[in-house]
């Protein structure tokens, strides 16, 4: 590949600050007078991946496109650097987001039914503010409750390309555990 195109793709990924789609990269190259095919850009990315092999950087494909990130092996020092900036996610919030991601679209009531506890407005808001969930509609039920689904940003933040990459939802335990459950109660 033309070194200029490869370098421009590298520059774009580095300067974007968000994932870029192949078509987006093509458009940006075109406005710079570089006419390419999508397959060429994919080749550029492969070439860059090889270039980054011996570095601390890598290119990953997530839901919103391709992005440059620091290899996880080199992330520990940065964790110390940004220590205060990463808010913890509570167990309750984690349960809520996992119910939304596996059962989407869901209403707050659906989440409450599974968790057996009321879901605070605060926790829904905090997921909305994180851009991890969005309102994708309203259920045709009394009160027309909002239906929540996960966003691409949520997948991006977990380094995923699609929701299907989430680990499979465990089946209902029919093993010995179940017997215990029925014996216990």
């Amino acid at each position, binding site marked *: 590949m033309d070194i200029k195109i490869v370098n421009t793709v590298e520059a774009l990924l580095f300067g974007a*600050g968000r994932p870029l789609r192949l078509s987006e990269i093509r458009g940006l190259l075109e406005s710079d007078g570089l006419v390419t095919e999508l397959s060429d850009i994919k080749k550029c990315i492969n070439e860059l991946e090889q270039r980054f092999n011996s570095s601390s950087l890598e290119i990953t494909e997530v839901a919103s496109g391709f992005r440059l*990130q620091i290899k996880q092996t080199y992330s520990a020092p940065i964790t110390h650097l940004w220590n205060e900036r990463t808010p913890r996610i*509570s167990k309750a919030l*984690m349960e809520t987001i996992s119910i939304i991601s596996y059962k989407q679209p869901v209403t707050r009531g659906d989440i409450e039914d599974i968790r*057996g506890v009321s879901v605070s407005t605060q926790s829904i808001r905090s997921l909305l503010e994180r851009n991890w969930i969005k309102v994708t509609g309203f259920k045709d039920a009394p009160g027309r409750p909002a239906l929540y689904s996960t966003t691409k940003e949520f997948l991006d933040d*977990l*380094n995923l390309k699609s929701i299907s990459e*989430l*680990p499979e939802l465990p089946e209902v335990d029919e093993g010995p*555990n179940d017997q215990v459950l029925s014996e216990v109660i």
Partner: protein
Amino acid sequence: MQNTTQTQLEFPMVMGQPYETLPEDLFIPPNALELCLETFSGPMDLLLYLIKKENINILELDVSNITDQYIEYIDLMDALQFELAAEYLVMAATLAEIKSRMMLPRDKHDEEEEDPKSALIKRLQEYQRYKSASEKMALMPRVDRDFYTATAALPEIKIEKKEISITKEELASIFNEIKSRPDLKLSHQIDFEELSTQERIQIILDILSRRNVISFSKTLRKSEGRHGVVVTFLASLELAKDGHVELIQNKTEEMFLKSLRGA
């Protein structure tokens, strides 16, 4: 030591004790009880925890035991003035209902209804699926915690926009007011009147031709300011040097010019 082996080692001791204190593997310091509710995400979580504990020692288990444990737990939290979510009490009531039903002889009519016990089991099973899924999800690499993006992008700058509310009349009157203001910023040149020492000498000589003595201040023109004082002073010195005048000054008094020519 690994967590699992620890639990196994400590387990007999825990089982040997009645559940009057908080379970040991939670290890909650008495003054940090607020952490307790965070440990459990809800009544289902607490119930699962109790069941899981019993799971290890299945032979000692029965329904009333788990109910008693749960209610003791709730009582304990209540005694420690822990503000309990209402859902915990609902669960306690559900458990108590199941327990009491088991004690009563079964009625045919009851069997047609949904058994609250199996309903609870279903709910617990369903909850457990999502609970374990959420635990897995919590361990998945997450941006800004386990990995970071590499970027040279400009930082986002948040600009707060303030709403401006104004009527068109207000706008017009403000504009008119501004237009009628004197232009305070217009630049202008300050011209100093050229004052010549020669001219001043002539003026002083003219004055002295009419009167013999004159105070220095009388030879000044106020409008000329500092510049005039300097010029007049220089003229006086010039006249004194050439022997036209005598400069007299007594202590704090001001300076007088005395004509020598007329003398």
